[in-house]
């Protein structure tokens, strides 16, 4: 449904502002995450610093959005689609803030790694990283276009993220086993990989929120899961 504008213009503007803030916040998360992946793969400490320093921008957006949502609820008592817009914004911003944190954590660990990593390893990080970047872009698109189909697609593709995370974990374990000198860096890389996978999970949350926002119903059923053995410790 494309909605007519509200009779009260300032209400319309407030809702529009909220939605715009969320889109910009999402854009910042995209940048943070792609830079974090680039930094770890290229061992680029300056870029990692960028990611770390810019995280406050994302944090501030979360606070800002929370205030806007509280104002809307207190002063406008939103109903139906407006209520879903408002509540969804609050939930999405908290998932996106976590995405920012996890990207920052990848950057922090990057700075603790002081040498170039083997190609097979960086390639497998890059592979899952790229997929998650695509997921992030798609889920933000699903929000801007209010498209439950794109959201559902993201939700279903998380299975692939799990699979690639697994491959990546295997590479890290190979790296750990190959030389006991690798234990320190290797353990950081385990966390980096896990962080990427968790970002993927936050994106499926966002996908669920967008789906609910548009349809007013919940995405049904269990999300398809990829091979989980290493990531979750399940067989």
């Amino acid at each position, binding site marked *: 449904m494309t909605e007519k504008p509200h009779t009260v213009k300032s209400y319309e503007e407030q809702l529009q502002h909220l939605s715009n803030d969320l889109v910009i916040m999402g854009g910042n998360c995209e940048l943070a995450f792609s830079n974090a992946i680039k930094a770890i793969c290229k061992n680029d400490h300056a870029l990692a610093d960028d990611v770390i320093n810019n995280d406050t921008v994302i944090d501030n957006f979360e606070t800002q959005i929370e205030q806007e949502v509280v104002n809307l609820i207190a002063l406008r008592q939103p109903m*139906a689609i407006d209520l879903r817009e408002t509540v969804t914004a609050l939930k999405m911003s908290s998932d996106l803030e976590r995405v920012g944190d996890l990207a920052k954590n990848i950057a922090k660990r990057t700075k603790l790694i002081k040498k170039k990593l083997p190609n097979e390893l960086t390639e497998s990080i890059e592979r899952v990283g790229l997929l998650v970047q695509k997921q992030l872009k798609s889920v933000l698109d699903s929000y801007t276009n209010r498209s439950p189909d794109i959201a559902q697609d993201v939700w279903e593709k998380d299975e692939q993220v799990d699979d690639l995370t697994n491959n990546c974990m295997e590479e890290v374990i190979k790296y750990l086993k190959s030389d006991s000198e690798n234990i320190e860096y290797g353990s950081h890389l385990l966390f980096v990989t896990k962080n990427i996978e968790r970002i993927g999970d936050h994106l499926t949350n966002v996908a669920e929120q967008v789906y609910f926002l548009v349809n007013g119903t919940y995405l049904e059923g269990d999300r398809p899961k990829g091979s989980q053995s290493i990531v979750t410790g399940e067989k």
Partner: protein
Amino acid sequence: MNKIEAKNVNVFYGEKQALFDINMDIQEKQVTALIGPSGCGKSTFLRCLNRMNDVIDICKVEGEIKINDYNINQKATDVVRLREKIGMVFQKPNPFPKTLYENISYGPEIHGMAQSKDELDQIVEDSLKKAALWNEVKDRLNEPGTGLSGGQQQRLCIARAISVKPEVILMDEPCSALDPIATAQIEELIDELKKEHTIVIVTHSMSQAARVSQQTGFFHLGKLIEVGSTDMIFKNPNQQQTQDYITGRFG
């Protein structure tokens, strides 16, 4: 269970049709809210439910209104008894030009509901307490009802309506002249009353409809556009027109 069933109800004021083919079920011991823009026919529909439209000369009602499965639109209906069972609180408070006490005691008296003066006193006190007015008027029960403020008069009318213990209470914007505290008291009263009564309330406050009712019907230009659980209507209505109205996009 359905307390009231409206079937193919059409209402005309002279040549002008005010309601078109309304079909609506009203559940027993629940609160049903009627919402919609001014002039859409909410009050007209409410008045169908106790034949109050009879008193408007040019008004003609077609179709069936069944209460407890009995069609009240048939000739044989005893309208006085009907209105005892189906009480009403109007959009504008309309106290009798009598004392506060008499405003309340009148109904129970003529219906022979009290055996003694003490019992009648008790009914008056209970009704005023339920309508959240007792504390303000208990020392001036012999003053005229018309001497109260607008909000107090409205609560007096609510007390009067409940004094005869009706099965159904129709309320037409009962809180439009009330301050937030009195409004909260009336909403609390509605919650209380629905344990024993069926309530139909017309309100222009979306949040009030959402708070007090279990079912909501949305009227527009004399048609019932959508009716369903209040939860559904305010979270995710089926009709675009309903959503436009409740979210303030009507123009």
